[in-house]
């Protein structure tokens, strides 16, 4: 870790002025990822701006439109166990609880969850080439050990995946991200927040430097009757998804009125195909339809030496999770498969 100075902000405005649009100044909230990034020399900071004392963004509040606002500084654990979230957005609660470990969830914040960086081994090793860390140096993962890497939306420059579970549910729920910047407030749709790697894998998302996430809004529709989060991984806790699926259905008389399906662990951002979701509209919840929707979501998927299995696995996971969403009470701790 390099030496850095430390500043404490107690309002959003103070945080913005401490950052001052300077790329060398970084925000720390829960610190569960930036700590690693600093220790491994991935992120270099001249100044760390601690925003944990800001009180305006650390709660969950009801919105007039029937939705909910998640404070950016509210912790992942407090969010997952909040009675409103458990009751109205159980998909979000389950997804959060499938992530990291209890200790990390206690520290990690909602805003920080969006900002976490990939867990690609090569990204974390400064002695190997990586376009995300060192643009232009090459991608070690494409012809390296790529079991955990992307099958969708990747580029020849980067096949890293975005590691969050929470964000997969937020994507499925059509959340929006509220941002404060030196120019004022702005709102980004969740789908617009994270980016695909393309030619600039070093840029994870569309938050500009100097801006601060203040909260995340959930619309009223929470799919609390038919939802499921499924996470497939190499151990039952404290490991990242090889494939995860967040599914929400609105069903009337055995007909799907609305469907949301987002994938994690397969791309540089939570993966949603709106056309696929539309396909399920006014259809019956059958294996055949679930299989067809999986094919639509996975169209164009491409694997590598060690992650080819993810294409088939993702299809199976989508189908299973559709059935699990029909029986949400069957879900198991840790988002293990059920039924």
């Amino acid at each position, binding site marked *: *870790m*390099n*030496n850095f100075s430390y500043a404490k902000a107690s309002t959003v405005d103070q945080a913005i002025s401490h950052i001052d649009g300077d790329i060398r100044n970084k925000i720390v909230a829960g610190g569960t990822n930036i700590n690693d990034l600093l220790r491994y*020399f991935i992120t270099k900071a001249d100044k760390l701006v601690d925003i944990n004392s800001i009180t305006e963004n650390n709660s969950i509040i009801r919105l007039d439109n029937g939705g909910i606002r998640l404070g950016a500084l509210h912790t992942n654990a407090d969010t997952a166990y909040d009675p409103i979230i458990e009751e109205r957005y159980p998909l979000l609660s389950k997804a959060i609880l499938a992530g990291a470990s209890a200790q990390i969830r206690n520290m990690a914040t909602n805003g920080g969850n969006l900002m976490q960086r990939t*867990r690609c*081994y*090569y990204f974390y*090793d400064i*002695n*190997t080439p990586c376009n995300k860390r060192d643009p232009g140096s090459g991608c*070690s993962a494409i012809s*390296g*050990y790529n079991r955990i890497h992307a099958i969708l939306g990747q580029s020849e420059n980067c096949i890293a995946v975005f590691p969050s579970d929470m964000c997969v549910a937020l994507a499925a729920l059509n959340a929006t991200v509220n941002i404060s910047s030196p120019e004022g407030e702005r709102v980004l749709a969740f789908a617009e927040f994270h980016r695909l790697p393309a030619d600039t894998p070093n840029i994870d998302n569309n938050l500009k430097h100097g801006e601060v996430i203040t909260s995340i809004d959930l619309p009223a529709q929470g799919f609390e009757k038919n939802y499921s989060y499924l996470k*497939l991984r*190499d*151990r*039952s*806790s*404290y*490991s990242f998804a*090889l494939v995860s699926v967040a599914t929400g259905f609105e069903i009337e008389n055995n007909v799907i009125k609305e469907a949301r399906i987002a994938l994690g662990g397969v791309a540089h951002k939570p993966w949603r195909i709106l056309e696929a979701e539309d396909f399920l509209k006014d259809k019956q919840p059958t294996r055949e339809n679930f299989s067809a929707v999986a094919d639509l979501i996975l169209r164009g998927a491409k694997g590598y030496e060690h992650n080819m*299995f993810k294409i*088939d*696995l993702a299809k*199976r*996971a989508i*189908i*299973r999770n559709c059935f699990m969403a029909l029986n949400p009470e069957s879900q198991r*701790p*840790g988002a*293990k*498969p059920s*039924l």
Partner: protein
Amino acid sequence: MTKLPSIGKPVSRLEGRLKVTGSAKYAGEYEAADLLYGYVVNSTITKGKIAVIDTTDAKALEGVIEVFTHENRPSTAWFDFQYADMDAPPGTVFKPLKDNEIKYNGQPIALVVAETFEMARYAAIKIKVAYIEEEFETDLESNINQARDPKKGLASMLKPPPPKPKGNFEEAYQNSFVRSSGEFKHGTEHHNPMEMFATTVLYEGKNKLKIYDKTQGTINSQMYVANVFGLKMKNVQVIAPSVGGAFGSGLRPQYQLFMAVMASLHLKRNVRVTLDRAQMYTFGHRPPTLQSVKFGADENGKVNAIFHKAIGETSQFEDYVEVVVNWANMLYPAENTLLEHKLVPLDVYSPLDMRAPGGSTGMHAIEITMDDLAYRLNIDPVELRLINYSETDKSSDKKYSSKELKKCYLQAAEKFGWNKRNPEPGSMKRGNKLVGYGMATGIWDANRLLARAQAIMTSDGKVEIKSAVTDIGTGTLTIMTQIASDELGLPIDEITFSYADSAMPFAPIQGGSFTVATVGPAVKAACKALNKKLFKKAKNIQDSVLSAARFEDVIFNEGFIFLKNNPELKISVAEILEANDGKEIKTTNTSMPNPLVYGKKARAVHSAVFVEVEVDQELGIIEVKRAVTAVAAGKIINPKTAESQILGGMIWGISKTLHEERILDNRFGKYMNANLAEYHIPVHADIHELDVIFVEEEDYFVNDLGVKGIGEIGIVGMPPAIANAIFHATGKRIYDLPIHFDKLL
């Protein structure tokens, strides 16, 4: 008056409270005046030379005392043998900072010493290194054409090479009624005990050191330091009071010991060097191994032909070997065998013993092959083992000193409910899940070496026992106290077992499951000798009621010596001590196996393991729902600590089978997942119902306590039992480790 034995009681760990409350001190936690802290810098290339190492900026930082590199390393011993420790394989021991040559990725190349750990670590990044890189090879599979016979050395004593071929394997195999063959491979497994390696050296003036080291052998570390740095043995005291797990990693001195001692001697200061988690991946490991197995059997299931070949990784400087291919014929008495073990030297650090080294590797291949044979013969897998059961180790033609493996099979099968198994693969289901039952056998050596122990009775009638042996978390302290308690007839709270100090009587490194069988008899012998001294003094008391008694006629209990057939006649220990003018009574004794008879029988500990898995039919996710292990290991001194040993082994077996995977990128020659987030071991949610049975086994041939070791046996049978259960569930025979769920899609 009956003597209540302590042996056989589930006594809780005597140091348990200290450990769970955080009061137990480990090697890296000892305080010292003006302590300096060292941080090791590791090579970022795999092979080549250091062209330039520039420490100017690091040294210029305030608080940095010195930076040691190959350029300014103080001189140390010249000859290779002076670096050899008790577990050194044949070859040339790695010498830290010897010269500018890089032999493997992560090799220590510098030590920064500073006034704080943080400053040392910070200064480390200011060191600039320029390398001249050379071509390297780290991939076992693409280098099997380099495979050769291992060199022999002292290590061959406990790790015998494969027995010579017997009969005619090829002919017997070709003529067999059924044949089974398989190719097996597993990758490197890394040592990750909870406590990372650390050494605190107290400089006591005039080249005299007191060293707190994480080790499995205080005398091993003492000898290494004395030899390498040219110190007198009596001026080097090594203490290792608490060891937070070691599992073989502490059988050899690790490089932080060298570094800390070097810095302390040179700076004449107290120095601590601790490794971080990533550095735990820069020394010995379980070697990746390729195995080839062919078994042939007759129509009754009798195995008559065994071929087992292993090709293991080693470094370019030492020939690390383990016993991989010898086990099949120790269990199954085939007349025709062909057993081979080869090594491929690669640009890695030397492999190192890890729990059941070789045994867990070889038995994985052997017991999967037996399961496959059972299917080909349409014979129940347990039945097939019973058909091939032998009271004799066919590989040496020696009878086992004891072997209650049959009881293990039967008791574990009963507890598990093996009779509910439908042998047809894929036939048992639970909802969406395929259910599989699998079983396997485990075997490990029951060895014993030489050890000494001292018993001292102080004027208050309490007894202190001393031994240099460590307690690596296995319960040694508790068990040795129990052994002394029974021999002396004293309650355990009147006995102090002092240990893990090189100044105490000799004990070998704590490994190979031989500690209780080695140190236990020495403790018993010292206690018996103490009793004899007490008895002699008792007889000499004026008008002694025991004056005519022989030692065989008395028993020791609760501070008295009683005449066995007339307990009214007794003398109190207090009286004896008073007659001894309050002086302490002490004795030091040596205990070792009788070389004339010890080799005449085969000695082993056995286990039978039964496992139930659930496999998600569509998604492949594997869960080990239940496992039962029955162990025949002679007398169990403490069922509680013993059960912990077996449970730990079983959990590691699950880890090794389903979770642990080193990611070695051969383009860079390095492990890419050198941390516990990405190098997976199981979490609580991966572990379900585990049961342990100790079957009755009487064996006073192995030693006079009747104990065999249990440190390794818990892991041995788990990987094949899980793989066999997965086959039963899915019909898929997976030969490699780890078994990731996507292999079942």
